[in-house]
């Protein structure tokens, strides 16, 4: 078994950012990702990002990924990267088990950062398992990574930022977005994204949901229904729409499984997307020297994941003896950035959720 100073699980925005700041302190990092390439979901994000310059605002997501990857590559003497490798075990004696090329490898770590991200939620409706019904992330992956169209005529379900942005990306790729459904009375994501779609002629139907999918071997029609103010379906408002694809964008939930295996205290917090770890102000979980960063700690925008990564990387490195002279100042800057990103009305849910997972040790 090999000993590693800091192991980071997940090479998305949070993991890459964490590897970079940790390596800057002199700490040696092993960064593990299960995909053939680093960057997580950022590599499929074709839109320009919000936020401020510190979080690479107005840069397209895929170019932010390139920047974060190249930052990590400048520290190749201190950051070792293994792609195509899945961390399948986390044990109490600070050991992880990694599956890579059909072989298992065990590593002991001094500190660990879990940055596994989030997975897509599903929506319950009749025949929701028909091929042609995808998660929004899958549609992005197919289109923007592999250059394959998910269909020609699609209905999007969910008006959060992901649903709005992926609809726009579908139109850029030449797909006809026939409608965007939202069960709530209001559009969930940024209105600027919604306005972009509306001026392209996309119908945004609030208080409307998908009731069932129809098709044999593949979806070819869906039935929508309107909802009343108490979210009950209104009989007689059913409509059929011909489609060859349906995209489900009803949110993400944190991929907490490794944390559960390790025994970190978890809590169900709907505002953060599901099961999330209890953490302190430096993103350390209830297990000593195990930290988290990004969506696994609560689903947010990628901008926040990057800043959380920078913060956790520094904090984890400091915890095992790599404390920089300006440590406190840097941490305070990252905390302030996160506060800024979360301080508006759109951050209200996140703020409420994060309050529920702050470790008691903070008090």
């Amino acid at each position, binding site marked *: 078994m090999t000993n590693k100073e800091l192991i980071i699980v997940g090479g998305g925005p949070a993991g890459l950012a964490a590897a970079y700041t940790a390596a800057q302190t002199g700490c040696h990092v092993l960064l593990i990702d299960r995909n053939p390439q680093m960057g997580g979901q950022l590599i499929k994000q074709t*839109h*320009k*990002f*919000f*936020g*401020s*310059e510190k979080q690479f*605002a*107005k*840069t*397209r997501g895929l*170019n932010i990924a390139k920047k974060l990857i190249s930052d990590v590559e400048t520290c190749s003497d201190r950051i070792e990267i293994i792609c195509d490798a899945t961390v399948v075990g986390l044990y109490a004696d600070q050991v992880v088990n990694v599956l890579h090329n059909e072989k298992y490898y065990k590593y002991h770590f001094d500190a660990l950062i879990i940055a596994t991200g989030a997975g897509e939620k599903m929506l319950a409706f009749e025949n929701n398992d028909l091929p042609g019904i995808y998660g929004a992330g899958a549609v992005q992956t197919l289109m923007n990574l592999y250059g394959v169209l998910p269909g020609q005529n699609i209905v999007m379900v969910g008006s959060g930022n992901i649903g709005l942005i992926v609809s726009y990306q579908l*139109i*850029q790729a030449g797909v006809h977005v026939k409608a965007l459904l939202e069960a709530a*009375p*209001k*559009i969930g994501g*940024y*209105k*600027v*994204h*919604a*306005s*972009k*779609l*509306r*001026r*392209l*002629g*996309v119908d*945004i139907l*609030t208080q409307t949901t998908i009731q069932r999918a129809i098709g044999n071997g593949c979806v070819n029609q869906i039935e929508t229904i309107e909802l009343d103010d108490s979210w009950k379906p209104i009989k007689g408002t059913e409509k059929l729409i011909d489609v060859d694809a349906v995209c489900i964008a009803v949110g993400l939930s944190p991929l907490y499984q490794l944390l559960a295996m390790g025994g970190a205290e978890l809590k169900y917090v709907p505002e953060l997307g599901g099961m999330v770890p209890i953490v302190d102000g430096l993103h350390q979980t209830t297990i000593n020297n195990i930290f988290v960063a990004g969506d696994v700690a609560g689903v947010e925008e990628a*901008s926040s994941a990057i800043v959380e990564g920078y913060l956790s990387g520094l904090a984890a490195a400091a915890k095992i003896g790599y404390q920089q002279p300006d440590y406190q100042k840097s941490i305070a800057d990252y905390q302030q950035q996160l506060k*800024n*990103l*979360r*301080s*508006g*009305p*759109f*951050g209200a849910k996140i703020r409420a959720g994060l309050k529920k997972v702050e470790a008691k040790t903070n008090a």
Partner: protein
Amino acid sequence: MLDKTGVATPEQVKSRFPQPEQLLKPKAIIECYEDIPCNPCSTSCPFHAIEIGDDINNQPQLNVDLCTGCGICVTSCPGLAIMTAEIRNNLAIFKIPYEFLPYPEPNSIWNGVNRDGKVICDANIVKVLLTNKQDKTVLVTVSVDKKYLYDFVTVRNKNE
């Protein structure tokens, strides 16, 4: 209305336009109607005409006198929520962001589209600009009849 359909009300739209006499020179029209954490419009403006302040959730405020209508903010806004507008004789002239193929050709006639996605007029494509700095967001200069000043928002290919 904006909350439900994505379409701003005519009052919201007008509130973002300077007085017509100020539009004899191009000015930025910033259609950012909610507090979201974002500030590239402000940081990209070479004339410091767009103020957001320390809290990046604030909505941008345009200083009309400082704005030259250069259009840099138009392609910097991640929400594609900014255009410039100018009144010249009987024409309203806009610079709008565009991210679809095919790009409009200068001197061609495209459909002018309103915020509700409806075709409302002919739009004459004046100029199409794409530099590296714009990062694949094309800046299209387009003229329409002046009476569509508050309605026009984008262009659409006649064949669509």
